[in-house]
């Protein structure tokens, strides 16, 4: 047994880089797939709506842990050797995409029908209505729940330890196993998690204020 020392903190900080990397993969991968799914959910084509909604139901109905196992152990059993990073990236991307899609669909649908109608009446195409009228307004509504879910993702990356990742939570366990000083070790882990998630909330509040920056004085002619 040895005591908790600065090297351990360095080790935790390095593990936190995995947490951050996995989170970023989930944000970007899940964000892109989620955006496409959200558009499918509100498509005029029935088949796209049905495919997207079926996919979302399945993904949302399964624990992330099980999805990680399916991509890691399941495909390995079938003879496909998926590296842990790949399996984690796929699982996190698909998992986040379903939740992002639902958050964004909800925000789009919360925009009053009159906005669609007046844009349509001016001759805008469906894509123009979405791009210039609906989505800019929906973004503001979507911001708080989106950031809320991103914070969830950061915490959920700890599940990847079960397919072999030494990310922040797993690193904390390892350090505790050799130091037997759970209080300082996990306090340190908690502080690192917090300092990863907190900037997200700050960013969100800042963006929210910015997208609502309508209150500049009226310019007179």
């Amino acid at each position, binding site marked *: 047994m040895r005591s908790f020392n600065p090297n351990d903190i360095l080790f935790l900080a390095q593990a936190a880089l995995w947490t951050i990397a996995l989170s970023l993969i989930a944000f970007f991968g899940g964000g892109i797939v989620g955006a496409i799914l959200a558009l499918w959910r509100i498509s005029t084509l029935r088949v796209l709506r049905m495919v997207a909604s079926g996919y979302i139901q399945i993904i949302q109905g399964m624990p992330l842990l099980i999805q990680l196992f399916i991509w890691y152990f399941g495909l390995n059993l079938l003879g496909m050797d998926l590296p842990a990073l790949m399996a984690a990236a796929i699982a996190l991307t698909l998992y986040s995409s379903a939740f992002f899609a639902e958050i964004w669909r909800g925000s789009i649908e919360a925009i009053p029908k009159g906005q669609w*109608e007046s*844009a349509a*009446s001016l001759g805008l195409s469906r894509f123009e209505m979405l791009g210039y009228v609906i989505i800019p307004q929906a973004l503001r509504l979507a911001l708080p729940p989106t950031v809320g879910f991103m914070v969830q993702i950061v915490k959920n990356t700890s599940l990847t330890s079960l397919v072999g990742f030494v990310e922040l939570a797993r690193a904390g366990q390892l350090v505790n196993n050799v130091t037997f000083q759970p209080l300082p070790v996990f306090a340190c882990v908690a502080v690192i998690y917090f300092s990863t998630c907190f900037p997200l909330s700050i960013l969100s509040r800042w963006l929210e204020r910015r997208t609502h920056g309508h209150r500049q004085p*009226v310019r007179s002619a």
Partner: protein
Amino acid sequence: MAIVNLSGVRKSYGSLSVLKDVSLAVERGTVVALVGRSGSGKSTLLRCINGLERINAGEIVVDGRRVEQNEATLRALRQEIGIVFQSYNLFPHLTVERNVTLALSLVKKMSTAEGHAIAERVLNQVGLGDKIGAYPEQLSGGQQQRVAIARSLAMSPKVMLFDEVTSALDPELKEEVLRVMEGLAREGMTMILVTHEMDFARRVANEVVFMHQGKIHEQGPPSRLFVEPATPEFRQFISSAIN
């Protein structure tokens, strides 16, 4: 040739029949006021004209173009038809100027300078030239409604549709909007308006159309219709509308 022509139009929502065989011809440069009780189908009729609602039977022709439910037709058609709603429906995230110029740049492919010139012209026309840089939430209801009118006018429509555009406004604010509409009528704009303002209809409309239970029940120039209503339903409607 009428600029708006409806013949045998039927529209239902599920089993609810809202328009039952409506035929109406609107001549160029005239003002038609649609009046009638709540639920009689006035808004639905208006919304069918620019294709916001799909009709189940009959035909609507605007300026020689048949209203059909495909994107290309509707886009072309809607450039000819302006519509103003009771709830203004301005784009809250855009300035007054951008509200007016958005469709000019996207649909008519105009440059920023061309758009700006038109925005100044139509905003002056509705008396709001000084609000060009404001956001909708900074304006009163009456001002927002006038911006909505300006936004439609910017597209140089051949026909303007108004659906109870003053119903959400306080009496003092109603007047400023009605004055703008009256000015448009004087300039020869073809207008179809749903209204509860009987005085306005009497003063400005060339033709009053009384709708009752999804049909045109009575129709004619206001000078005749309001003086000697032919049907008991319309007579009753007028007396309840005045009180």
